[in-house]
């Protein structure tokens, strides 16, 4: 109220000839003058991105240096590719990389189709109450923290007091300590993940299904399609673009499997399958303070991740015609 009316803006707007921006020098300066408040607004969030995203990227240089605290990041001596060599020749290399890869691949394959099936089934239901109940309930675990999901898994799988051993015990089977078996780690990881996220992921497909043109259903009906044929010929093709995007994003983050959960589910007995790149980086970097080596390992991971994403996007564009960009 106390502010003077911003006359320049007003005046500029009254001009019918106000051109939609063309590429010419002075465009930015003009925009800065007219839209200075917007530029002011964007400074703090951009400062955040520079500080906590781009500076860390630049800090990645320590993977190529013998980082030490006294000399600092830029003052430390160059190490060339020494730390990468150390990682590649490390006996842990194969274990950690293949664990990461297998775990994410398994998670991807298991957690990808289930939300689609859930969404297609929900889409068939006409009764609002049942539909909403299923949706609300399957969605809820998404709100539970990883710490809690892991502790629930530990309690339920516990050989002495867990739900599972009670059930297997009922059938006369011996109690097993699942989390002490390396072979079991991946199953626990992946299926708790599915349990936690299936309902949430289904929402995206439900949204896509809600947008299907009713005329297509009419046409299918006229052609005498049954329920399954309708799902197969109308529903699935309609949500294919959404499926593709979700798939690309999942493949793109294949090497970025959740550190948090793997770390929580880890114990000395299952390390042979539960040690993944992220947990290994944490141990090297934070616990052993071997910053340069840990950064080299992390960088290796990020690069593979980026390459995977680019490749998948390219393939998808060629095959289905749609991609992320």
């Amino acid at each position, binding site marked *: 109220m106390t502010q003077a009316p911003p006359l320049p803006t007003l005046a500029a707007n009254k001009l019918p000839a106000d051109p939609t*921006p063309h590429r010419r020098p002075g465009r930015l300066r003009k925009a800065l003058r007219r839209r200075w408040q*917007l530029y002011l607004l964007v400074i703090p969030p951009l400062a955040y991105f520079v500080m906590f995203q781009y500076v860390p990227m630049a800090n990645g240089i320590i993977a190529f240096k013998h980082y030490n605290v006294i000399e600092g990041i830029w003052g430390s001596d160059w190490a060339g590719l020494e730390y990468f060599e150390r990682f590649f020749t490390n006996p842990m290399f194969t274990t950690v990389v293949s664990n990461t890869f297998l775990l994410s691949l398994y998670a991807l394959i298991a957690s990808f189709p289930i939300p689609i099936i859930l969404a297609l089934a929900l889409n068939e239901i006409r009764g609002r109450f049942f539909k909403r109940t299923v949706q609300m309930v399957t969605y809820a675990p998404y709100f*539970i923290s990883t710490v809690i999901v892991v*502790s629930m898994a530990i309690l339920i799988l516990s050989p002495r007091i867990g739900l599972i051993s009670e059930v297997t015990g009922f059938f006369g089977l011996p109690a097993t300590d699942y989390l002490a078996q390396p072979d079991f780690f991946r199953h626990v990881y992946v299926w708790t993940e599915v349990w936690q996220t299936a309902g949430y992921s289904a*929402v995206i497909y439900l949204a896509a299904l809600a947008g299907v043109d009713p005329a297509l259903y009419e046409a299918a009906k006229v052609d005498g399609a049954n329920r399954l044929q309708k799902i197969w010929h109308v529903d699935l093709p309609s949500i294919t673009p959404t499926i593709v995007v979700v798939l690309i994003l999942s493949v793109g983050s294949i090497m970025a499997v959740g550190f948090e959960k793997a*770390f929580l589910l880890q114990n000395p007995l299952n390390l042979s399958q539960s040690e993944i790149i992220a947990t290994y980086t944490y141990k090297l970097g934070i616990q052993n303070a071997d910053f340069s080596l840990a950064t080299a390992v992390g960088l290796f991971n990020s690069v593979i991740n980026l390459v995977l994403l680019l490749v998948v996007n390219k393939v998808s564009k060629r095959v289905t015609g749609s991609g992320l960009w």
Partner: protein
Amino acid sequence: MIGVYILLVTFLLVVLLPLWYIVVSSVSSPGAVSAGRVFLWPVEFTLRGYEVALTNPKILSGFANSLFYTAVGTLLSVALTVMLAYPLSRADFVGRKVLTGAVVFTMLFAGGMIPTYLVVQATGMLDTRWAMIIPKAVAVWPAILAITYFRSAIPDDVREAGEIDGASDLRILWKLILPLATPMIAVIALMYAIGQWNSYFDALIYLRDDSLYPLQLVLRNILILNTDSGADAASALERQQLANLLKYSLIVISTVPMMLIYPFVARYFTKGLLLGAVKG
């Protein structure tokens, strides 16, 4: 059609049973839980686990810390996200393509754990409450959601009307755009709040002082590492049993705040995700 119902009921039970088992165990007697006598209904009903959990000073301080981090963190994150997203949603904001690209790129390629740690260290935030809030203040996904929302759900006429009335860009955003964007704000606030409430990893890396620990890290120490049973005076057996009971109660307690918020925001959430999906 029967098949569809069977499928959905299976989904329902698979999700519900573990949750129900935890709740039932949390109100059963420690002995019954340890003996495996609890399955679908409480045995020897007791609230002892809740009593122990809610009188443990570490749990209480963790709870308070988490409330603080969640409230302050969410407020800051939402504010910064809107400050970023609104200008980037405006067609007349010169440079928006470059800036959007720069923001989205951080989704594809990240500096990594140690290089980020070094920044946090250099800014002197290690072992302070700031470390829990600032380093992850803005996330790309909510920002994309907000940009899409501003661009597609709010008609440009609103802004033009404001400009004709002589309002500045800030005023238009504050008085006209934001009230219209309430559903989207609710969604991104919930996204950030869930993230904050559930995170333990930043605390693990950045905090030493356990009086600053958020609830999740306290829970991890009790539930997963078994380092603190919260029942010091009891006998060994009783302590062991109580420790187990405490775990079930703790799981319930720590999940309650999120479950309370969820129904209120759920309807917005579906809408917001829908918009995000349409864009994608």
